[in-house]
């Protein structure tokens, strides 16, 4: 079969992207996200202009982060919750933070097969994690995509993560509410849950509480309540509840959502929500600065030239780490402290 060269896809201009997002025109909205994900500098420049224009339209969504170990039934849960929210008249976007190790070549993007029902609803939008990016890259694109979703008028943005590396912390840092899913009947040491994840939780939901599992789920919920009682709560006005839910049957989802709404109300009334979001932005800004400075230091030609020399000096014991650090910093252009 002969293969003809197709027409190059028409490029959108700044207005095209901005209006596409504001009108929530699926195709242009999706391409705006692709623009955000692009690594080309001219695309990144345009992406920042698009974001700048859209900024006044952002901030309106409930931002909810969701984590849980593989096998906890996260997709089924998100699909059930998402469908329920759409039924109640809300629009829902689902984003994912799933960094890939810096492998070259293509990637298999998270398959959507597991959220088929949700992906077909007009008021729902699902976008897997951007391909082939390390955590820093995924964090930036997901945060900015979240803003696009808000500009497009989505009422709820769910950000899910599989919990690789520091991804839970990163997600907790971009949402208003952080939900941790657990399995029934297994202690957290069995669930491979990382220390510290429970401390991020605004709510723990024991999933798969259906059929014969209900009793085990209740028991697990009791254990987590006990565990949370001895932890210091993140917010003075909010003690994280523990619920049992089932993504399969939908049991407990209404209660879970009303807890999320209650959290929103509490945090809005005491001014914490606004405060939290501003803090997140500040930390986000500084973390980007830190990343850039670190990268600049390591890529600096004089530092690169010095690297092997000071490293072997330390290995051979002819150089103390403090002296070596001073030399590296001076090479980078910093004055000694």
């Amino acid at each position, binding site marked *: 079969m002969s293969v003809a060269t*197709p027409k190059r896809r028409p490029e959108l201009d700044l207005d095209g992207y901005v209006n596409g997002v504001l009108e929530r025109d699926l*195709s242009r909205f999706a391409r705006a996200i692709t623009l955000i994900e692009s690594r080309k500098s001219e*695309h990144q420049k345009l992406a920042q202009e698009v974001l700048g224009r859209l900024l006044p339209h952002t901030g309106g969504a409930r931002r909810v982060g969701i984590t849980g170990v593989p096998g906890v039934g996260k997709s089924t849960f998100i699909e059930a919750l998402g469908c329920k929210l759409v039924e109640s008249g809300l629009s829902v976007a689902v984003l994912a933070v799933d960094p890939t190790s810096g492998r070259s070549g*293509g*990637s298999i993007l998270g398959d959507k097969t597991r959220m088929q029902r949700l992906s*077909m609803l007009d008021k729902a939008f699902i976008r897997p994690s951007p*391909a082939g990016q390390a955590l820093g890259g995924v964090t930036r694109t997901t945060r900015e995509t979240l803003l696009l979703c808000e500009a497009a008028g989505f009422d709820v943005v769910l950000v899910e993560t599989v919990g690789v590396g520091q991804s839970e912390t990163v997600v907790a840092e971009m949402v208003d509410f952080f939900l941790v899913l657990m399995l029934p009947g297994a202690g957290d040491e069995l669930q491979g849950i990382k220390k510290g994840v429970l401390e991020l939780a605004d709510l723990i939901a024991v999933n798969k509480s259906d059929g014969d599992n209900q009793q085990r789920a209740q028991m697990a919920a009791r254990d987590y309540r006990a565990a949370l009682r001895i932890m210091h709560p993140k917010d003075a006005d909010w003690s994280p509840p523990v619920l049992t839910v089932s993504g399969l049957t939908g049991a407990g989802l209404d209660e879970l959502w009303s807890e999320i709404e209650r959290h929103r109300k509490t945090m809005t009334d005491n001014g914490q929500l606004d405060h939290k979001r501003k803090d997140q932005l500040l930390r986000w800004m500084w973390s980007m600065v830190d990343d850039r400075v670190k990268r600049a230091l390591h890529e600096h030609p004089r530092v690169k030239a010095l690297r092997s020399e000071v490293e072997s000096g330390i290995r051979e014991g002819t150089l103390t780490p403090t002296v070596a650090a001073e030399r590296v910093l001076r090479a980078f252009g910093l004055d000694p402290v």
Partner: protein
Amino acid sequence: MAEKKLHQLTDQDGEATRDRPWIFRTYAGHTSARASNELYRSNLEKGQTGLSIAFDLPTQCGYDSDDPIALPEVGKVGVPINSLDDFHLLFEGIPLEQMNTSMTINGTSMWLLALYVALARERGEDEAKLMGTTQNDIIKEYLARGTYIFPPEQSLRIISEMYEYCLERIPNWNASNVCSYHLQEAGATPAQELAFALSTAIGILDSLKQRGHFSHEQFERATGRISFFVNSGIRFIEEMCKMRAFGELWDEITEQRYGVKNPKFRRFRYGVQVNSLGLTENQPENNAWRILLETLGVTLSRNARCRALQLPAWNEALSLPRPWDQQWSLRLQQILAYETDLLEYPDLFDGSPVVQSKVEDLKALARAEIEKIDGMGGVRSAIESGYMKTSLVRSMAERVSRIAKNEITVVGVNKWQEGIESPLVSGDDGGLFKIDGESVKETLEALKAVRGKRDAERAKAALLSLKAAAKSGANMMEASVECALARVTTGEWAGALREVFGEYRPVTGIEGQRLGLEGERVEALRKRIQRFTDERGRRPRIVVGKPGLDGHSNGAEMIAVSARHVGFDVVYSGIRLRPDEIVTSAIEESADVIGASVLSGSHVELAEQLMKLLDEAGARERIQVIFGGIIPQGDFERLAQIGIRAVFTPKDYELIDIMERIFSLIESPAAAAE
């Protein structure tokens, strides 16, 4: 009494005798209940000794023929069955009490058995005399065939309930048929085939034990009802050894694990369809020899000989078989059983050190794999975690890599490709089977009629009882028979259980797969893709999926894995997708290409639907669409008119060719000109 000679087969009285042949089957069914009934009756007249029913995909996946997702598939790969009225038509003139009927049915197996029982009751035939098999092996559906509906836990419950119902009431019925056939089609090695099939059988026995419905005596008899459906590939010596290993391992497992004392109930009973995976689209006449050789693997060794055999047709890689193609395969069986001396000897291989060593080797590998699956918590856990699926996709990727490197020879494909054009495909029909497009009307009218004239109250009540049984944990078989008698439809029965159990989407198994495909062309393509990536700021993106109900996902999986291998970002959405799901996904992901894989013959309808949706979204310019699967050359023109940019078939076995062609479709004019 004559002196006993070792090479002679003798009966109880010491008289020389000959074995009875195995059951000759032909896997058949198409178009409509009426057309299939005519086909069955003519096959039985030709000397076929059992029925093997092929159902169409909507029936297998639990949809009525008039469901939008079902329409393109009605009658394509088998017979459509919507209600008991269709069954009356299908078995007209065929006495159930004398017929051994095998049904290739899984997700809706309980429903089809219920229809069969209801038919016997309405005809006044004795339910207890029914003979046959419902395939009902859900594990391999999750892994290879794709007609699952419910989650593993509920699927295992349905299988167990059918064993419990059949044991006393239909004692000659095989409630399920553990399949390793499809595992080999999906790329399984002999050891994986042994281990995965036996682990599935272990899963069924464990489930029967845990449910505690049977006394030990009943449990032993139920074990004796477990039958297997095995594949036989072209490496026929190894296949024969595999069959001996199967028998020995099953005997060992049933005795040691489950304490089955009666050796009769420990026997490995199996039927066969020989391999389709190795059949080629190039020089298809060679497939006749392949089928013959594959048949030897399951007939030569008397102690490991199959009980029933169905053969594919020589043109399987081109289309569904015509009646003549099926007759040709049936004649092969008859010649082997009646003209040759095969059935006159005791086992030819007992005591052969070579065979014994090979068998021991296979058994050791299989035992290790069974232990591994045990360690994961058994077959259900190994499915839910994706372990089994991922193992199979890996084996298939290895096979494909080895053919690409010429480590495996496939005559007419990677060696001796040049040949004289086959006269077999030059008839008026091009050697292909065509479905009469008008026949769907008859099926749809019958369905409408059933809904119109049934007692609506009775049907409603029957569905309510079915749901109640599903929720309470009671056996659902009798409630299903009542549904059948009340003229409930296939889609209604499955829909009721979907409500209670939910639908299942298994792991696709393609993540993290590696392909052993390297070389100058791969490197050159990667460079081109890197240039594209630098220029666009992102990688080229392909959405791979299977529209429609056909669940044979090997091809789509290999395309997804190789596209990733050369540098694409791949969105693989798995099987049983509606065209609008694929298009939405492609738009949400800003994809450059949609790759749709279809093996059921519905490619034209599905292509039209896909292109219409892309037009409506204004994305036809941006997103190229390509098709792959069992697609006759005669349809290429039609697909091109619809707007499909390239079509790939089993002839295109070189993955790198496929990748180059796909990428050329989306490469910018500037890059293509270099």
